[in-house]
């Protein structure tokens, strides 16, 4: 059974050039900057998630139940590396975590953006409170433009979009003091996207 209420995949535009869109997505996202990783299957994705946590020296991470990867498997693999991963819905645990893992529904190649039905409070907290956010998306769900993404949403929800749809393009940023670009204000300072084939 899917963890999400509405599956967007059946509503993707026909005949997408998956490889080309992935390449554009990667280039645009990296410019924002986002770290983009590609995994050929579930196991590889889970391994790279654990690897990212190791590299960042993480002790406490949080995640939500997902379809593309198995949160329980991640917990197991992380444990071996001395990292605790919690999928409990508790604000204070999530707030103290250094790393959040969640699944997004779509990518936009044009701008290196990821899109998510974020009505679920759990998904939202995990992606906004910790300083590092890692999102998994299906590689085949990368569309070309913002307009394409709106069309997918319109179709998937039959004209009644979910209460909260989130578009994320890179880390949280500000230029409010002397227009100097500074990363990581209220949201995560680091964004990692794992595209799962």
């Amino acid at each position, binding site marked *: 059974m899917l963890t999400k209420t509405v599956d967007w995949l059946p509503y993707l535009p026909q005949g997408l050039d998956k490889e080309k869109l992935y390449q554009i997505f990667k280039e*645009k996202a990296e410019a924002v900057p986002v770290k983009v990783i590609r995994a050929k299957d579930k196991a590889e994705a889970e391994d790279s998630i654990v690897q990212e946590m190791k590299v960042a020296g993480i002790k406490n991470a949080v995640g939500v139940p997902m379809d593309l990867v198995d949160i329980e498997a991640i917990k197991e693999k992380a444990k071996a590396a001395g990292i605790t991963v919690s999928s*409990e*819905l*508790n*604000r*204070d645990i999530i*707030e103290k975590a250094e790393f959040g893992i969640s699944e997004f529904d779509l990518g936009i190649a*044009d*701008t290196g*953006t990821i899109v998510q039905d*974020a*009505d*679920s*409070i759990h998904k*939202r*907290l995990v992606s*906004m409170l910790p300083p590092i956010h890692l999102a998994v998306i299906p590689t085949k769900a990368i569309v070309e*433009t*913002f*307009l394409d993404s*709106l*069309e997918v*949403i*319109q179709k998937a929800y039959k*004209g*009644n*979009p*979910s*209460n*909260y*749809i*989130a*578009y*994320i*393009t*890179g*880390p*949280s*940023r*500000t*230029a*409010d*003091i*002397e*227009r*100097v670009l*500074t990363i*990581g*204000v*209220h*949201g*995560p300072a680091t964004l990692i996207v794992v595209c799962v084939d």
Partner: protein
Amino acid sequence: MPVDSVLKAKVNKALSDPVLRGALGKFGDEFPISRARVYEGIDFEELRTAIANAKKEVIEDFEALADQFEANLKKRGAIVHRAKDGNDVYRILKDIAKAHNAKVCVKSKSMVSEEIHLNEHLKDTMEMVETDLGEWIIQQVNEKPSHMVMPAIHLSKERCAEIFSQALGRKVEPDISQMVQLARQTLRNHFLNADIGLSGCNAAIAETGTMVMFTNEGNGRLTATMPPVHVFLVGYEKLLKNFKDLALLAKALPRSATAQALTSYVTLISGPVETLKDKVGPEVVHKELHVILVDNGRRELLTDPVFKEAGQCTRCASCLNVCPVYQLVGGHVFGHIYAGGIGSLLTGFFNSLKETDHVQEMCISCGRCAAFCPGKIDIPRLILEMRNRVRKEIPLPGMQNFIVNTLKRRGLFQFGLRQASWATALFAKEGKDGNKYIRSLPFGFNRLANWRSLPAFSSQPFRERIKTMKQEVVNKRGKVAFFGGCVIDYAYPEIGESLVRVLNREGYEVVYPDQTCCGAPAIYMGSMDVAREVAKQNINEFAKDEFDYIVSACPTCTVALKDQWVQVLKGTDSEAKAKQVSAKTLDFIKLVSNLRKEKGGALKETAATTHVATSQQINVTYHDSCHLNWDLGVKEEPREVLKAQSHINFIEMNESDRCCGFGGSYCIKLPEISQELLKRKLKNIEESKAQIVAVDCPGCLMNIRGGLDKQGSNVKALHTAQLLDGKY
């Protein structure tokens, strides 16, 4: 009084604020470059036309769309309120706060809340915490935003560090990333404890009942997520009809606002979302979502036959970023709550005509902002309309009022200009370039001449000279009516003579119909009635079939004949004539370019027809006059024509299309600003290493020539007609 000592003091204070000047100046230089980069590959004209059309549809139907928006939200369980004004908003929020026994309200950015001074009115009800970094900083010192997108752009990092130190009760160093981290920590606690979240929105979609926020910091997401209650303040002008229209806004707003392809976060909220019970969980409940649709002058704006165009605004603030006056003084002088040109329009409706009076006076009518506006709003024209409306309630001060009223009285006007020739003769001295200048004036008038010399008025105006000019038309092709304009007629008749000779060589006889002022000065001072009078006095002489073209060598006059006469004479019995004149009118340089292209072949081949009394190469640079470039869209033509002259070595100066600061009556009204703009222009001219600066507007010529004379510069300023005539 429109420009009084209070405004003057504010202007002078801003001009002598190095932080402000540095920050805004640097930003003004960088913004157009990064903006152009992020728009690469996108047809901006097509995009903004689509946005303007989508917004126009909304404006025509906004009441029904607001109803649809409300109904959709209610279906999802949101509570929708309508607020007539600020008082209604305070009341609604106080009720919500009371029902939840709320102590703390976290706010993500909302200009509506600034406009109604919300924090001040609710501070006794609950603690109001701004969470946008810039807004939080200015909230600590009780200031208003000086920019719609970057509210604290007027503060240096040192000043920010002082503000942080005071707010947090400990010493904070002026280290930007450290301050950002401190803000994160401080505000995180507020987010966790807040009872109410309050947000503004960038779009409100009727079709789906969706509110959209474009943010970068992530405070919008937290505001919408953490507290159990969320309130949106939505202005009627934020409505969009269809869900897919959001794609247009997403393409333009981040690019025009911050030169980003997309902001870090775009948040779409269409109903009460999940939240955690008692803020911590694990039980999940639904939030209470309130949406307050705010009027506060918007309904009046959106139904105003003229000003509804301002409803197309996306609040991207790019019009401020490119405005040469905003760059000098910032949003606290050129702005009320909403800054810049568009700010002066919004203030007129959201606040009052009186409050916008000072603000709208700051605009020099250069027209630059309109070229950048993604809502395709003719901001400069609307400002003139606003000025006209304001002037009906608040009259002009002495000097300007005298000028405007003299314009109406044709005889007196011409008499006055003639008298000026002998009066100014007393003060005239010869400059390096052989022209006569006035370098200082007695009494109170010296403020007009002490920063740039003024031309001495000619003893014989052009209207007399043309009578005795022999016109040698070779291979006659037709007849051109020449609208001279006051400056050429009385101060620079030699430009008129050059124009006649150049057009004669193109095969056209030049006639000089009886004429008075074009009326533009009245329009720029906000007196449409006077402009109408003056247009009427001129129209019959020009609306004649015998003329193939109507030409002016002053772009301000050209704009008057081409656009403004049609506007002011609309609905009168002269309307048809005004249209006839408009269709035939073009600026001198555009006409020359057209005629030479018509003759077939490149401009180069025909260039030899110019009689030039020089065998030496000269270095020439070109200044784009605002009304020629931004209003008439003539930019390449003068360059093509000049480059085609084999003896001219054309050099592009930096910022050739930046206003020189003349602005007609503006330099009488706000010489402080004009002077700063001129300084920068002169610097760019000197740095180009040109020997001659060519211009197409006698106003710019007067200003630039006067500035060069005052500096003792060796560079000469000439009208393009003089260069093409070989007279230098």
